[in-house]
């Protein structure tokens, strides 16, 4: 079979097949808090609220723009109750910049470190920014990349989940 045709057919079939989300259970691996203490991943999830996890890095401009936009939404009270966790995928080169940058930004959400990228691999976050929404212990939404306005879509999703959980 001609290679061009094979590649095109492959990409098309996977694009069509990849249109549904898998409601997945959470991985059983540790994550490091900003003090360098390793804690079980499941322990950082708030089981009473929708939890939003954002994979980011200090060098990733779209990641920082997304977190800034979400912090604005939190400050404005635009979203009903949810917990935001930002997991830094900064490696040895830039991990030391996480604390001073976060402090200067005044972000109010929890920050965790994934220096070896083990969590990022477990969640199959190929590129960052990558957002995962967890409700009742399961992943219910995932999003790759960020363009301005994505935070509106995310807040709509969170509000829908909170309504369906508390009718």
């Amino acid at each position: 079979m001609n290679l061009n045709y094979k590649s095109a057919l492959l990409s098309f079939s996977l694009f069509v097949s990849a249109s549904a989300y898998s409601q997945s259970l959470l991985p059983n691996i540790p994550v490091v808090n900003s003090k360098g203490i390793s804690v079980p991943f499941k322990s950082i999830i708030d089981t009473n609220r929708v939890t939003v996890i954002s994979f980011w890095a200090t060098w990733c401009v779209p990641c920082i723009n997304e977190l800034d936009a979400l912090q604005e939404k939190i400050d404005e009270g635009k979203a009903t109750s949810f917990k935001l966790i930002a997991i830094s995928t900064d490696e040895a080169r830039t991990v030391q910049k996480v604390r001073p940058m976060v402090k200067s930004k005044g972000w109010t959400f929890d920050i965790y470190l994934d220096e070896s990228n083990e969590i990022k691999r477990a969640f199959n976050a190929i590129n960052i920014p990558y957002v995962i929404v967890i409700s009742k212990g399961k992943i219910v939404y995932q999003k790759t990349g960020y363009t301005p306005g994505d935070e509106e879509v995310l807040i709509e999703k969170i509000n829908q989940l909170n309504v369906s959980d508390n009718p």
Partner: protein
Amino acid sequence: MFFYILLPVSLLAQIDLGKYGNITGSFETNNQLYVRDLKTNAVLPQDRIGSNNYLKADYRFQKISMGMQYEAYLPSIEGYPFFLNDAKLIQKYFSYQDTKFGLTVGNFYEQFGSGLVFRSWENRQLGINNAMEGINIRISPTNNFDLKIIYGKQRKNFEKSDGTIRAIDANYQIVKPAEMNHEKSLSVGASFVSRYQQYTGPNPAFKPTVNALSGRVNYADVTTNFSAEYIIKSKDEHTANQQNTNTGKALLVNYGLTKNNVGFNINLRRLENMGFRTDRNADQSLLLINYIPALTKQQEYYLSNIYVYNAQALGEIGGQADLFFNIPKNTKLGGKYGMSIAFNYARYHALQIIAQTPTSFESKFLGAGKQLYYSDINLNVKKKHTAKFTSSYLLQHIYYNKSVVEGGNYENIKSTIVVAEVLYKYATKKAFRTELQHLFTKQDKGNWFGILAEWSYAPHFSIFASDMYNYGDENKQIHYYNAGGSYTTGPHKLLVSYGRQRAGLICVGGVCRLVPAATGLNLSFTSSF
């Protein structure tokens, strides 16, 4: 054959197995269709297509997980550190993870401390994947003590390394905070990494085993953090270090301070013969045991990524400092939304050599040689002016020793780069962004001008066009244009673009590789499930 295997696997991965666990994974394909380009003299490969494909799948059931990674290079993209025209189920593992004990058999990734003594990792853009194949044991007998033991060979493209690694890492938490935002934490750690590779050469005194020992300390409280790591490595003559016989040494020190809306960090590093590989004949980015990134600011703009430093494992001394602060909102300078400012300075010198032979040298431990390898100073400012309008600026000045960083004989380069970026969010989910960039230099290819325009409609669409133009080159002025678009839905993204890539260094996370000039169509698709 590859396609017919992938399709049912990808459909199967959509199914949640309920009480029997779940399957998750990802698929990534990066394709290039090359065209002849007389302007850049890009060499057209024999097969005009490059295609790198990755399928990863993991099964999890309570404390057990297992998985695989299938890769197909049909053939590999031009400029990759290896050429392959093959497909293979190259990685597989079985793992059991509990709070006190973990066991992984098969392929795994691991890091000790900062990675300066050991790190296995994957970076597809650079073509690096030095995953271990063997056994990884993690033991945590108490809440304060963690032990890692690994044994195995590294992955080398579709084969295994000749050398074998045996390593152990221990970490002890002396002081552990009760809550994340209060009290202090203090930990110490140590690692031992040993590489054995059979030697069949003529020197009877040659030692086939290279050992590295490291010690580290980490301290953090509410406002301060400090860490230090020291590594010593036995004699390790190999191709990449020109058979140097020095004992390897590395020192990495970091100090950070945060208060109110200001954050400061400084790190200092000294390297002496710290290249460490599982094969003494490997070079470039192959079979690296440790991780030595350039400790400089990672840049996001096109022209800032032309002169990028690559760490000199044979010998360098230097460091970088960062200062972050926010002008608060509702102030005269900060305006309604505030303004963020980031300052960075980095500088790296050769070691101060006291005596030298063809295969060794003696140097002052904390001395810096006169030869400057690299320095840069960066000022970033970002301000949101109104709900719809945000602007960002970069001012950067670079000194770049091209002969040292890229090899060869070139004049040193001094350049200044200015960037202005504007984001106009004219509707709730629609935005337009533009960048104007300029690089000033009297050396190398002279001045550059760059421009980018991007329109996006969240959450699905974006289109862009960009150009980098070296109008200051006396010999040849070339437009490096690029245009394309992407469609995103949830965790799936399709990106198509057409453009011209310049020859030079591509650096990701401080590790670099040389890429040739290339022109053509790019198509990539990523999906997670």
